[in-house]
């Protein structure tokens, strides 16, 4: 049987204050007031589904070896590319072998749970890294704008029980269209909430849960966690009651602190629940959308032996309140601010060069001279060593996971960025190597010479003409590194 070998999550740092959304929109949609409590996660301008998946995967992989990963899955209904494999970018960013299989899964809100299920089913032919990541778009002043959140989760699924073994699974599929979004459209079109609740959540999802319990012979009262990634108050509680699962088993849906990350949400909640699970706990995960996929995991004695880097809790704690609704609208592309002529800089991709240099650009792989030990970025044919510019001696030297410190910095108000001022500077990697890089997720006064930084995979630029997204690595203050300078 397959089991979860490790797990992780990622929640972007910015937390849009729902009260700010309501304050801006109440002239038009006063009814939003009932949802105007708490906060939802929102991607920074340089984050998207791929960058969040990368961070969730890194959270999951922590210092675990990546060599045995045979398959990489990315589930999302909001991936940046409709035709360029998003999981392929993830694979490059994680500097995985070229010999892994990659697959994107999407087109439904149950894609995350479905991917997890498929990962478990295919683990017998190799370890699977399964990620789910979501940044759904919603019309300004819509309920979804308040209910949605951005986030990602990742699991390594392998043969053997691991931290939590898959006990059973159950699927129901039906073309129940509670909402839809045609190809090329930006926003969802929904149907009446009462119908969705009664015929969808209650019957379809409810039947899937009861079907699983019946099939596996597990008593509902034995369920320790019911993980339902459907936004809306009382949905999960209703499902628990209908199935006979204890009310206290209903997992925190994190709605108050991050909203719902769509297809990724059940997996984010699972990762969150695993942080505190005890041996023997039964965790029931439900993904909903044109039916339901239900997975039942049992935490093993190994639970607690492998921890994510920060975990959902750690990333949630890293949150920074964002009370500026206009900033959210701008980052989400709902409004076009005057960007100025500096934004006209040509950012069109050079695809040949990107392919040639994909390890450097997407994987942040530098070079190490096998003669002198000199570490440098990028890797070059001739070593930068002033005393021994050896030719052709460099081997790959991955830098993405290496801690770094600020060597010089500025906050630039002149250069174009969607989030001025633009922080950038030089950083030195622990053990050698340095680079000039942008900083992101930075607060004023937070950066100083010597401040510890961590690399994160981010959007470098978006080409206005083709829509191509360029990714690269940026330095972010290491969590807990806030210092004056």
């Amino acid at each position: 049987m397959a089991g979860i070998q490790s797990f992780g999550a990622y929640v972007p740092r910015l937390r849009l204050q729902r009260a700010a959304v309501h304050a801006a929109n109440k002239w038009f949609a006063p009814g939003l007031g009932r949802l105007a409590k708490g906060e939802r996660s929102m991607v920074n301008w340089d984050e998207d589904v791929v960058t969040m998946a990368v961070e969730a995967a890194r959270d999951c992989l922590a210092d675990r070896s990546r060599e045995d990963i045979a398959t990489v899955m990315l589930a999302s209904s909001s991936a940046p590319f409709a035709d360029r494999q998003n999981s392929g970018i993830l694979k490059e960013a994680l500097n995985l072998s070229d010999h892994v299989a990659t697959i994107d899964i999407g087109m439904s809100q149950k894609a995350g749970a479905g991917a997890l299920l498929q990962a478990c089913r295919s683990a017998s032919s190799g370890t699977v890294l399964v990620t789910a990541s979501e940044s759904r778009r919603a019309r300004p002043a819509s309920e979804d704008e308040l209910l949605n959140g951005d986030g990602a989760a990742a699991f390594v699924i392998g043969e053997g029980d691991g931290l939590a073994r898959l006990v059973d699974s159950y699927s129901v599929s039906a073309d129940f269209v509670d909402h839809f979004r045609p190809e090329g459209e930006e926003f969802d079109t929904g149907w009446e909430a009462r119908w969705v609740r009664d015929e969808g959540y209650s019957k379809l999802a409810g039947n899937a849960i009861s079907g699983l319990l019946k099939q596996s012979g597990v008593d509902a009262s034995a369920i320790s966690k019911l993980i339902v990634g459907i936004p809306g108050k009382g949905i999960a509680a209703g499902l628990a009651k209908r199935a006979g699962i204890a009310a206290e088993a209903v997992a925190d849906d994190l709605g108050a602190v991050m909203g719902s990350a769509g297809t990724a949400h059940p997996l984010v909640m699972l990762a969150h629940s695993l942080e505190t699970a005890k041996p023997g706990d039964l965790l029931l995960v439900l993904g909903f959308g044109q039916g339901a996929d239900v997975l039942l995991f049992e935490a093993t004695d190994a639970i607690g032996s492998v921890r994510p880097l920060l975990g959902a809790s750690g990333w949630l704690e890293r949150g920074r309140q964002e009370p500026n609704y206009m900033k959210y609208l701008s980052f989400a592309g709902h409004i076009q601010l005057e960007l100025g002529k500096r934004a006209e800089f040509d950012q069109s991709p050079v695809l040949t060069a990107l392919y040639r240099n994909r390890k450097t650009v997407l994987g942040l792989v530098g070079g190490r001279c096998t003669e002198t030990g000199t570490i440098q970025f990028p890797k070059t044919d001739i070593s930068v060593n002033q005393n021994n510019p050896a030719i052709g001696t460099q081997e790959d030297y991955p830098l993405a996971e290496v801690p770094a410190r600020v060597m010089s910095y500025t906050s630039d108000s002149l250069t174009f960025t969607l989030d001025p001022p633009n922080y950038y500077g030089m950083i030195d990697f622990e053990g050698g190597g340095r680079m000039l890089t942008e900083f992101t997720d930075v607060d004023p006064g937070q950066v100083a010479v010597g401040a510890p930084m961590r690399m994160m995979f981010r959007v470098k630029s978006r080409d206005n003409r083709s829509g191509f997204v360029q990714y690269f690595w940026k330095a972010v203050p290491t969590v807990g590194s806030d210092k004056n300078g």
Partner: protein
Amino acid sequence: MASGIKDKVAILGMGCAKFGERWNDDADTLMVEAYTEALADAGIETSQIDAAWLSVGFDAMNIGPSGIPAAMALRLPNIAVTKVENYCASGTEAFRGAVYAVASGAADIALAVGVEKLKDTGYGGLPVRTRGTMFDMIGVVGSAPGNFAQLASAYRARHGVAPEDLKRAMAHVSVKSHANGAKNPKAHLRKPVDMDTVLNAPMIAEPLGLFDCCGVSDGAAVAIVTTPEIARSLGKTDLVTVKALQLSVSNGWELQGSGWDGSYFHTTRVAATKAYQEAGITDPGSQVSLLEVHDCFSVTELVTMEDLHISRVGEGWRDVLDGRFDADGSNPCQIDGGLKCFGHPIGASGIRMIYENYLQILGRAGDRQREDNPVFGLSHNLGGMPNQNVAAITIVGQEGA
């Protein structure tokens, strides 16, 4: 070391356009303005010029590629014209081409013309441009102030200078250059400013405020060079000769190696050492009469004083505050207003700096003339970013000095 360039080439004539926002003039007009002055100064005809070098930094929105634009604007007699680009050191690079042509004997009289039409970009500051395919994928598309501002953070950390002390020293640099520029009829910015104005100006790239940044200007400058013998045969007596020309280009060590701390310009130090050796200068602090350095930003000038071995390392900011580089100080720097106030049309700047030293050494600098008989004038260009750049040094002086 090679025998060097010292006294092998003399400046026959120089010219400089009025720098500024030349809304109604294109690059051709600016070149002609500088060239006409230089030609008259040299006392020659266009037909006597054997070869020419044109320097331009931003060609796309300027005059386009090749040497043709200079040949056409100046109606050069179908001679060799080479366009050069080496970031902000482009002007010095053109001068270097002309000087080397004369020194080699390949040309009797050679021309260097530098020009830049920056005010056609549609916005303030330098245009944003690609630095090549690879850089654009992994580099930072920052601004020039942002790149040089990092010098300040690293300098403060390296030497333990309080942010407010460094900011004050930087402000002094700008106040000084504004005072100097106010006396120069060809300068772009001609209004003195006080410390408070500089210190309280809007931030461009921390810690550089508006007045820490040089002027973005249109302009052109020209040098005509020949051998001392030909210069004398053409009736010139007090010759200003080239003492040293040194260029140092980053090989990636600063950014990719590990020995650099970000607080200084490695290339300037290399170029300065070689330039003094070439010119036979052993004590630059006392021997160099005039300094025109690449003050693209106030912090750059301050750090450059150390890199040129004029100030002791870590003491440049104190020397600035002590007034050592003021127009009446012991090592006057940017007596013409510098990039800060004369303006910084990229391709022209290197030649403009030599122009001021040339005038001062000949005693032709008008109201701003130093009365202490300047012997050596050093000019310095810096192109690129602190971590990846081109440093160029030109020393000119009285023949035989």
